[in-house]
């Protein structure tokens, strides 16, 4: 599989009250054409910032280190029309569909805006395509919906409109930042299924951001786990659950009350998640890790490749196989 998106040692600092605050540190991630990669982690771990950096949507005065390449192009160097074209190839689905749609414009205007203004399509043709895609995401009366405003649609419906809109420009990469978190459970499953279906049909690459390790596993071939602005583990999704390489992943697995598992009440990871700028000198996870020793506190671990996966832990090899058990109570 050829790499469509390559993120190399990406570092991001944001300007907060005059000071630069690190939110991403040494993030490397590759997504092949048509491949789905999950990005999982607790709140504040830097998932959204990673996706924003890819789409060049970081807040003003952010400093960026490292490299991002899309189809061989240097994303961080793109300007003007080249950047806009690139954004046409990379579609973003945001978590809060309501906040992310203009309340005073119609659904039709929202959906066809790019087609009309950037692709120079005529209005009837753009609307025809929009209605067709609405049907694909399970909205049958598309023609009527195009005349409505966002506040007339339910959250789930609006998120489906978002997904349809994202696909309308035939992008090659979809960045989906917790697209279902704001929805209720049933709607969540529906929207997820639609997203997954459409993506596979179109051989569209996907970066899927979620808190939910199992959901990522269901949709993605490969999953990356983030902690404090770093990717701490990357692995084929089906291996993460039973054979985690990083103590944090094992903690996440254990913390999720799985429906399929018959094990009793599971333990949560002690302590609270840290953001990158709060992380201590050594391993960022050391304050919460049951396996931490002096080495962990003193030096920051590098990424070690193990089998098909990678983990950022000094003791990953030594702990292999024992992690899954460690959190069971």
């Amino acid at each position, binding site marked *: 599989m050829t790499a469509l998106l390559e993120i190399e040692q990406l570092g991001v600092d944001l300007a907060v009250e005059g000071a630069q605050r690190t939110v991403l540190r040494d993030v490397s991630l590759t997504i092949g054409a048509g491949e789905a990669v999950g990005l999982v982690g607790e709140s504040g771990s830097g998932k959204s910032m990673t996706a924003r950096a890819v789409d060049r949507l970081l807040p003003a005065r952010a400093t960026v280190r490292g490299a991002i390449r899309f189809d061989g192009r240097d994303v961080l160097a793109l300007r003007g029309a080249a950047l806009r074209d690139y954004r046409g190839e990379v579609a973003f689905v945001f978590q809060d569909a309501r906040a992310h749609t203009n309340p005073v*414009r119609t659904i039709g205007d929202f959906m066809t805006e790019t087609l009309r203004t950037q692709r120079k399509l005529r209005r009837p043709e753009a609307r025809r395509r929009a209605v067709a895609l609405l049907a694909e995401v399970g909205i049958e009366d598309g023609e009527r919906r195009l005349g409505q405003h966002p506040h007339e649609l339910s959250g789930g419906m609006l998120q489906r409109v978002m997904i349809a809109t994202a696909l309308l420009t035939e992008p090659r990469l979809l960045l989906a930042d917790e697209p279902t978190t704001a929805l209720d459970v049933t709607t969540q499953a529906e929207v997820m299924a639609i997203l997954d279906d459409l993506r596979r049909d179109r051989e569209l690459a996907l970066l899927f951001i979620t808190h939910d390790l199992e959901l990522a596993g269901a949709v993605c071939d490969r999953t990356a786990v983030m902690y404090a602005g770093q990717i701490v583990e990357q692995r084929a999704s089906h291996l993460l659950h039973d054979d985690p390489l990083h103590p944090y992943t094992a903690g996440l697995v254990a913390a999720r009350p799985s429906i399929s598992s018959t094990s009793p009440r599971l333990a949560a990871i002690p302590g609270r998640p840290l953001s990158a700028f709060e992380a201590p000198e050594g391993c960022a996870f050391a304050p919460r890790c049951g396996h931490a020793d002096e080495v962990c506190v003193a030096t920051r671990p590098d990424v070690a490749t193990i089998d098909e996966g990678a983990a950022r832990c000094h003791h990953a090899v030594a702990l292999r196989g024992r992690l899954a058990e460690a959190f069971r109570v």
Partner: protein
Amino acid sequence: MLRFLLQRLALLATTLVVASFAIYSALYAAPGNPIATLTGGRTPTPEAIAVLEARYHLNDPFLVRYWDWLVGALHGDLGVSIPLHQEVSTLIGERIGTTAALVAYAAVIILVVGVGLGILGALRPGAVDGAVIVFTTISAALPSFVASIVLLLVFAVNLGWFPAFGTGTGVVDGFRHLTLPACALALTSIALVARITRAAVRDELGREHVQTAISRGIPFPAVVRRHVLRNAAIPITTVAGLTIASLIALSSVVERAFALNGLGSYLVQAALSKDFAVVQGISLVLVVAFVVVNVIVDLLYATLDPRVALGSRAT
């Protein structure tokens, strides 16, 4: 939409009835005796008083007089000026054009300069924004009579670019005569509108939906036009509309400073000479204008924001 329209019209009618009653009763209760005004201070004979009372209905009960006045007003008859022996509607008609032109001219200046400066400040942080803030701070602090004097001194007396007094003749000359007064009238409001615009545009720029538009590769100028300005137009319209409505009342100050023969300056003059019918008539016209401008703003607001017109709860 129709329902909204009917609601607004009902509100408009109620406001006018209440306002007209307030105007009429306030002047009814005001000190001063119309007979004394009529006779110019001489002591009239009882017969003369009776004739005058009958002619001007001075002995009718208050509510009857109010009702007669209101019905007359609805037919365009605002009564007779006692000192001048002229129809109030004629007196108003002679002057309303000047005031309307002055307010309209000032409104255009406010919209163009105020909204323009606000947008500029919001889109160009740094030096440009700083200049906008300095300008609006100064102009906000200037009351219109001070602004009138300053403008008169600088542009009429020292530079001689514009005439200092009067209304002028013909359209072009009229414009020249109204330019300084309109600027003086607009100056304070420009500051308010510029600030509201700046804040609204800033606000919208930071909205998530603007980020969506950017993430879709829409060019920034189009994002600003289609999403930022379009949405910011909602609060801007409200504030600009109310500001322009308030100019109607403020116009008297400027009209007096520039010796314009408009409704505002005439209102003050009539009040000083206790010409009650004229004061009532002008007040009524000004209130109607104020209320109508407000209704227009309301309707504009409803057209701009689909969530208002449909009366649904947006979350």
